[in-house]
């Protein structure tokens, strides 16, 4: 049975044209871009080409692109680098409560090392209010970091407005666009952003390839010391196959984005429209319109995410969940909780992230399989039994339960 893959947030297949572009750089054109002989010059040429391709995707200059090995590394470099460069100007950092852990945990570490950190909340749809960012900025604020879009709930932030607030206040603005760059149009100039994280896997590139846009003139000391690669922003020999792959993927994303997104949005909108018709008691999470093109996320009431994942896997369908049980940390998604969802609902989280190989038939398969699975799990669920017996008592109980006592 052909499998249906709906977890492009976790991993995406590398585009075959990207793979072809990468292959020569493993064994034939294996040179180090830092070497001055011919192999090195050839490698340098490929590195420069890729940097230009990635820059074009963002409307940036090539020298504003620093290649890294992951979105987490880019986020660490941005936060730690800016904090160390500007610590004499102030010691206050603002982040949103729904940032990826590589932003949140880095900010919290800085918070234990002499910086004050304000976490700005989000509304029920996962939106950060630019006015709330403005209110959080103090005299000693040196950095604001708010993502461009959430991979968990699909919500796209009003990043340009947040950027304008930061610019007016003279504060550096970093945006984690790991889920957005290459998937939706990003123009770093229009977005008023000083620093931006992007990841090749979001647009058909290989794993291990990511970058940080750093606006010209912004000081950002390397967090990995050693040689002077990447304009002294990241030491270590360049991973040329990965970088070439990211460059090619960026070029293709730029050319094909509109067509890709038109196709994805059709499948997404069908899932968002039809899933609640097939399965009662479900709640769309994230923004209904301001949403990543291939992103569908629901909370399915009275059931827990891992059970759905395992049964869907049996049916040949791969999906993700933000439930506590599916996370290695055994904590429900901080994004869903920040949006004000009760734990019981967050446990029923279901995330479908679509990619270019998904078809209408894939959507049919999911819509056919899910109702029976949910019904089976609800038949076992004591929460569903309580709800059926006494809905009011069930709701009252959920409000009471805020902590885990086991």
């Amino acid at each position, binding site marked *: 049975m052909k499998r249906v893959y709906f977890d492009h947030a976790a991993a995406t297949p590398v585009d075959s044209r990207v793979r072809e572009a990468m292959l020569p750089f493993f064994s034939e054109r294996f040179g180090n871009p830092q070497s001055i002989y011919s192999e090195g010059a050839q490698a340098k040429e490929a590195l420069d080409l890729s940097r230009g391709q990635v820059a074009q995707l963002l409307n940036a200059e090539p020298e504003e692109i620093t290649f890294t090995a992951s979105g987490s590394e880019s986020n660490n470099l941005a936060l730690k680098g800016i904090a160390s460069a500007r610590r004499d100007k102030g010691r206050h950092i603002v982040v949103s409560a729904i940032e990826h852990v590589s932003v949140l945990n880095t900010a919290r570490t800085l918070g234990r090392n002499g910086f004050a950190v304000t976490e700005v909340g989000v509304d029920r749809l996962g939106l950060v209010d630019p006015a709330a960012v403005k209110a959080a900025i103090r005299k000693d604020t040196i950095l604001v970091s708010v993502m461009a879009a959430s991979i968990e709930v699909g919500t796209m932030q009003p990043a340009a407005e947040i950027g304008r607030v930061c610019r007016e206040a003279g504060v550096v603005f970093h945006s984690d666009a790991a889920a957005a760059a290459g998937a939706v149009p990003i123009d770093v100039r229009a977005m008023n952003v000083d620093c931006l994280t992007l990841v090749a896997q979001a647009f058909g590139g290989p794993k291990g390839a990511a970058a940080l846009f750093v606006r010209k003139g912004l000081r950002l000391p390397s967090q990995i010391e050693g040689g002077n690669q990447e304009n002294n922003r990241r030491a270590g020999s360049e991973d040329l196959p990965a970088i070439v792959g990211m460059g090619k993927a960026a070029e293709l994303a730029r050319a094909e984005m509109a067509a890709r997104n038109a196709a994805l949005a059709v499948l997404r909108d069908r899932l968002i429209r039809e899933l609640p018709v097939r399965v009662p008691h479900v709640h769309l999470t994230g923004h209904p319109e301001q949403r990543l093109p291939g992103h569908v996320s629901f909370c399915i009431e009275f059931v827990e995410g891992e*059970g759905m994942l395992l049964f869907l896997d049996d049916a040949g369908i791969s999906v993700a969940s933000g439930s506590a*049980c599916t996370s290695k940390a*055994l904590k429900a998604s901080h994004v869903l909780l920040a949006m004000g969802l009760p734990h019981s609902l967050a446990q029923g989280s279901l995330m479908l992230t679509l990619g270019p190989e998904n078809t209408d038939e894939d959507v049919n398969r999911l819509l056919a399989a899910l109702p029976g699975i949910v019904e089976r799990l609800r038949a*076992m*669920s*004591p929460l569903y039994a309580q709800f059926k017996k006494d809905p009011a008592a069930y709701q009252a109980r959920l409000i009471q*339960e805020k902590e885990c006592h*086991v």
Partner: protein
Amino acid sequence: MYSEKVMDHFRNPRNVGEIENADGIGEVGNPVCGDMMTFYVKVEDGRLKDVKFKTFGCGAAIAVSSMVSEMAIGKTVEEALQITNAMVAGELGGLPPNKLHCSNLGADALHRAIEDYQRKKEK
């Protein structure tokens, strides 16, 4: 991630349901923890004649509930109280380390149902 035995009990859980006029009911966990189990016991002549459960939780929590119910049926009340979390995990052929807490819940829920029965009997 899970053993075949765990997956079997997850896919085909034994003794799911509620017992009307149960002699004892035990509940552990809540949705904040991620798992919640309710156990029902029917006792006759000091033996667990029937055990049923309802569980909200991950694959391991459902498999553990199923295994606990299977292990408990037919045992005397005293024997059933001796069932430990480690025994349940062992019968399932082991659980991933981060899922061991689910096996803790299973035996606890059974024991609470039995204690509920004992309390009611004393009255």
